[in-house]
């Protein structure tokens, strides 16, 4: 009964949180390079070169415990985490090498931190991707597609592990092929950018981003970017007519490795829509209804006639 109550008290809020943000209960992810479909976080080339991986996790607590602050240690291992041999049943990473095991286990601490009492069981910490890989002595950042298990272990003041979260990470060092055939067609205070997917042996493209930039003082913003796109065209609006912009299209792999194509320019201009062009050419239509409401009355009259007829027995 007590266990059920704890699960209810802890699990329900976590489930609510998980509905709107990642990570889920008991899971460690990279905030940016996480694929919910694959349930994998990626360590990309930039992170392997010392870039930051923004870890985020949500602790699962041992039965009978509530979170009370203490230390969190991040471990990395080449072996999947398993239920601990202690009675609390938490899923933990190996914390050190065990070369005598079969197969041998390579693991070590990445970093640690002090978490104040009263903190949420959902926490974040920035670490270097290279440090995650370096914690596993059997791996290096020179190899693509290596699997690393990352765990957050919460320890109380007595160094007992009372909470944990774990996640699967994979090194992805290859970038996709850069987009080809980038064009920037004139729009009204906008550019309509389209491109083709790159062809080659690079990583698969997960999404694109388009950035247009200018140093022209007539556009103080200077830079305008799209969000993540899965299509191969977009309209970048909010630009200034008659200002020339540099257009860059970047393809990203699932792990966030970029491949860009630039060198294309575009200049927004005033565009006449059909009605505007029609009027420019001397068209007479003025909008509204030139014959007044007569047409509408005629239709309404017909409808009324029908309604009256239907009322007859």
């Amino acid at each position, binding site marked *: 009964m007590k266990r059920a109550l704890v699960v209810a008290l802890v699990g329900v809020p976590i489930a609510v949180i998980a509905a709107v943000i990642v990570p889920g209960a008991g899971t460690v992810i990279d905030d940016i390079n996480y694929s919910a479909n694959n349930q994998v976080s990626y360590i990309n080339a930039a992170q392997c070169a010392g870039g930051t991986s923004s870890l985020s996790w949500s602790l699962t607590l041992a039965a009978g415990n509530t979170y009370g602050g203490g230390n969190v240690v991040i471990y990395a291992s080449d072996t999947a985490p398993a239920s601990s041999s202690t009675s609390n049943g938490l899923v933990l990473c190996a914390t050190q090498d065990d070369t005598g095991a079969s197969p041998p286990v390579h693991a070590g601490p990445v970093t640690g931190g002090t978490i104040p009492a009263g903190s949420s069981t959902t926490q974040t910490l920035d670490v270097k991707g290279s440090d995650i890989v370096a914690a596993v002595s059997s791996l290096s950042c020179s190899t693509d597609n290596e699997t690393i298990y990352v765990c957050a272990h919460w320890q109380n003041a007595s160094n007992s592990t009372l909470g944990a979260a774990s996640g699967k990470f994979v090194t992805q060092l290859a970038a996709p092929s850069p987009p080809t055939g980038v064009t920037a067609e004139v729009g009204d205070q906008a550019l309509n950018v389209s491109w083709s997917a790159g062809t080659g042996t690079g990583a698969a493209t997960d999404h694109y981003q388009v950035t247009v930039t200018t140093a022209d003082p007539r556009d103080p913003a200077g830079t305008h970017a799209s969000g993540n796109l899965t299509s191969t065209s977009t309209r970048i609006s909010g630009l200034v007519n008659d200002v020339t912009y540099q257009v860059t299209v970047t393809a990203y792999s699932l792990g966030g490795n970029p491949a860009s194509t630039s060198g294309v320019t575009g200049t927004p201009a005033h565009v006449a829509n*059909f009605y505007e062009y029609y009027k420019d050419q001397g068209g007479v239509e003025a909008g509204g209804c030139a014959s007044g409401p007569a047409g509408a009355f005629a239709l309404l009259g017909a409808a009324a006639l029908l309604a009256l007829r239907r009322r007859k027995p």
Partner: protein
Amino acid sequence: MSRARLAALLALALAAPAARAGIEEASAVPPKHNGSFELGVGSYRPNIDSEFPTSPGPYQQVFGSGNGWMFRAAGAWAFYSGVGSAEVGLRTGYFVASGRGLYQQPDGTWARSGDGTSLNIVPTSATLTYRFDYLAEHRWVPLSPYARVALERYNWWVTNGAGSWVKKGATNGYSWALGLALQLDWFDRDSQRDLDRETGIKHTYLFFDATWSRIDDFGSKSSWDLSGAKTQYAGGLMFVF
């Protein structure tokens, strides 16, 4: 429309009064059906460029020279069912022409931009239809010629590259049509009986018609011409209930 096809349609339409003499007793029969519902699609191209002396006009420059498709749905109530049937009804539909907006280059010429623009039309009609369905009902000839006149009101709007409405209005007019409906019951009576029992649909027709329209606010000098630039051909399915 070729003269031969027009003549065939007219002959079918004119067959209605000719047949009346031999079927006097049928006119006394109470209405056999309550009305009809139809779904159809037809060719359409507004005659907007007709007001311009040179070709291509703005419509063709923006939207090209081809016809578009107008989708329509109609419901009608029968007020007479004897020697044929007569119905009054309402019809609506949708047409859109999509193209690219134009921008003026430094040399003054116009060029096609990357911004889209569209002309959207929702035609609404009050219709009066006479269908000579006596042969299909009583003589196992599955063809029913019909004639239709309609008061038309075309509500329209134009969008720019951002998808915003930049102008809207309504243009009124009228149209007339001749058509031929093929009663599909003729091919499978059992299925039609099942359909009637389960849904109340007494007959199903495949129809084709030709429409001539004048949609220019009855000649107003401040309205564009949304009449069909050519004869509009349409086809679809009609369900009589």
